[in-house]
């Protein structure tokens, strides 16, 4: 009997734990995002890759420095900061300067996350808040930095940019929007596969769906929020005659499956999540159709984030006990 008193661990129960951890969740999300991000780097060229690397590096550096300055434990290894950087990059036009992406990440991590208390305490989705920051600080690059898919390095250097389908839809209408879909064959195939101008990580609906399927299968996300977002978008754009184009373009899938589902900034109960998702979807469609921007998912999620504390209060889990006199 060698287990002496000094060797025994006296932690309180339960003494078993499920095979789950914050780090495992975050790195799985990163892995699920990777195919769509790499697709963006492939179709839009080297600058897109530089933007991804810049954003991830900026987020990681900011996370490390914030923990040092604020005397908090280092949380870089939990993968959440890398996730923020990666997500931010995936929402950016492929031709923005890589260092602007790094700056956006620093804002996301330092201001939106660390100053609010770090992981778990931020009110807004850091990546989307970082994108909103860049819309204000790099307006030109953020609204014109679009590239033609597989246009090659030379085209990018020439500054040959291409508007996104949603932008064309807003300015010139449905038919013109379809002309931006460049792949041979059906325009719907272009949208689904990701042969269209757009943000780095948003264009391949197929790869995003594949990543989301992994997250669903692993029990990391459930479909309540994403399906509500998609449904809300279709509902609010149905009268335009192009709900399917709306459904398959812009950052809808990236936002619905990977950003609206962010645990920290979304409600915790199923009914709260349903309302949260519908609000995002409706706002997305309304911004796209009536608002000043061609794309609305980013602001829709940020606005819905402000509702999360209230939704958590309004939609509580159902107690499985009649509240009566304690005996």
């Amino acid at each position: 009997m060698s287990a002496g008193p000094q060797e025994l661990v006296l932690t309180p129960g339960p003494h078993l734990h499920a095979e789950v951890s914050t780090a495992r969740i975050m790195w799985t999300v990163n892995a699920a995002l990777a195919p769509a991000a790499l697709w963006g780097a492939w179709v839009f060229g080297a600058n897109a890759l530089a933007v991804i690397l810049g954003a991830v590096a900026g987020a990681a550096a900011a996370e490390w420095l914030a923990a040092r300055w604020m005397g908090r434990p280092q949380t870089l290894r939990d993968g959440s900061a890398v996730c923020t950087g990666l997500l931010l990059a995936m929402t950016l036009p492929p031709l923005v300067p890589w260092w602007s992406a790094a700056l956006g990440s620093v804002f996301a991590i330092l201001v939106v996350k660390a100053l609010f208390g770090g992981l778990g305490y931020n009110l807004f989705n850091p990546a989307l808040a970082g994108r909103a920051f860049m819309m204000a600080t790099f307006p030109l690059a953020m609204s014109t930095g679009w590239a033609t898919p597989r246009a090659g390095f030379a085209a990018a250097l020439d500054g040959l940019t291409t508007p996104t389908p949603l932008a064309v839809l807003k300015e010139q209408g449905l038919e013109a929007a379809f002309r931006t879909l460049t792949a041979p064959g059906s325009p719907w195939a272009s949208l689904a596969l990701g042969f269209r101008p757009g943000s780095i990580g948003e264009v391949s609906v197929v790869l995003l769906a594949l990543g989301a399927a992994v997250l669903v299968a692993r029990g990391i996300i459930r479909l309540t929020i994403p399906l509500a977002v998609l449904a809300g978008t279709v509902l609010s754009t149905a009268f335009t005659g192009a709900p399917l184009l709306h459904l398959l373009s812009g950052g809808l899938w990236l936002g619905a499956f990977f950003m609206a589902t962010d645990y920290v900034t979304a409600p915790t109960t199923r009914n709260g999540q349903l309302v949260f998702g519908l609000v995002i979807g409706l706002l997305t469609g309304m911004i796209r159709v009536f608002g000043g921007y061609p794309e609305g998912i980013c602001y829709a999620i940020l606005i819905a984030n402000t509702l999360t504390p209230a939704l958590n209060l309004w939609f509580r889990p159902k107690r499985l006990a009649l509240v009566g006199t304690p005996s």
Partner: protein
Amino acid sequence: MSTVSLPTFGRGGIHPDPHKQATSGKPIESLPPPHEVWLPLHQHLGEPATPIVKKGDLVARGQKLADGGPTGVPLHATISGKVKPIDKRPHPTDVLAPAIVIARAADAPPELEFPEDPAWLELSRDEMIARVREAGIVGLGGAAFPTWRKLMLPPQVKVDTLIVNGAECEPYLTADFRTMIAHPREIVDGALLMARIVGAERVVIGIEADKLEAKWWLDQAIGTAAIGGIPIGVQPVQVRYPQGAERQLVHALTGRILPARGLPTAVGVLVQNVATAMAVSDAVRFRRPLLDRVMTVTGPGVAEPRNVRVPLGTPLGEVVAFCGGASPEVTRIIAGGPMMGRALPRLDLPVIKGMNGLVLLTGRGPLEDGYGACIHCGRCIEACPLGLEPDQVSVHVEAGRTLDTEPYGSLDCFECGSCSYVCPAGRPLVQFMQVAKSALRRQAALRSAS
């Protein structure tokens, strides 16, 4: 076999790896009488027992050593031997507590005999309760509440259903399962006796669906039961933790939902563990006191996992030695199951009445690397069988707002540990609940005092 259509409780719950295969096929083995037993005077809820023997007395196994008093239960010698000085000894839950120590002695009298009382089927309700009380029986599922008190229902309480709890939902443990296979007759008799005592109209033995072998044996015993007139049956329920918690088992078997913080009697149900039922049968039929208990000694840290019948008071070290000894890799020794059991600091502690298992774990466990911030993933809310909000309770406690946690259910938590089990940040959610609960109770006590 699909068990999804079987009854279960209403929400939440988890499916931890059952880890039962190491002992589920092993019949109960009896530990040879130890050299010494340490019998704490307080191993039940209620007041401690009062010794009626003194240092130097020679006692026989089965002889009463201490009186129970108005709220407790008496204590009996579990080996024949000589009483050593009554002094404070290490206790599995207290640090040190008074205990009667008996050392084996050559001149000690032999074990008392407990012949069958031929009139055992004709006893009155009060006589039966008196025997249960005199036998020192407490709830053997782990709660250790004196069984005689549970059977003495207040006049306004009506019970129509007696549930015998054979769910054994804690991972690793198989003591109840093997007891049902080895002693189905005693369990059925004990259950029917208790049904008579409380006036229940029916008895349901609830087992998790991975214990169907026990159902076969119990069904045989039911077919030949000595007590008629009360319908009794075995009902399998889904394998799902915490299916064996009273509230959850009552819901699964009767569809009735207990009021918050209420007892099963509030909905006309009384729940007793299978080992308790067996002890009641022994007490009523033979006047045999509770001397031994069956426990599962298992886990990756023990050489030969076993189900063992152990005299109460046996030092745990001897029990582990009987099971081939502990491996050098043992890091945690859990009294009871790993979900709700308690980590022990050492093995020179006695087996007490409520101890249904000893699980020796290896490797690193929860909380050893600290825990992280709540990421509000909602897994704890999904897992809670009561629909409470452990996430909210924990962040409120961390923010110093412990007294604001009642709306999130901190007072209702029965500490099954499902929330902590699923928390990706490894947060001690049960302990946050405990902190909140005790602060709220203290506040209520201060309010009523002023």
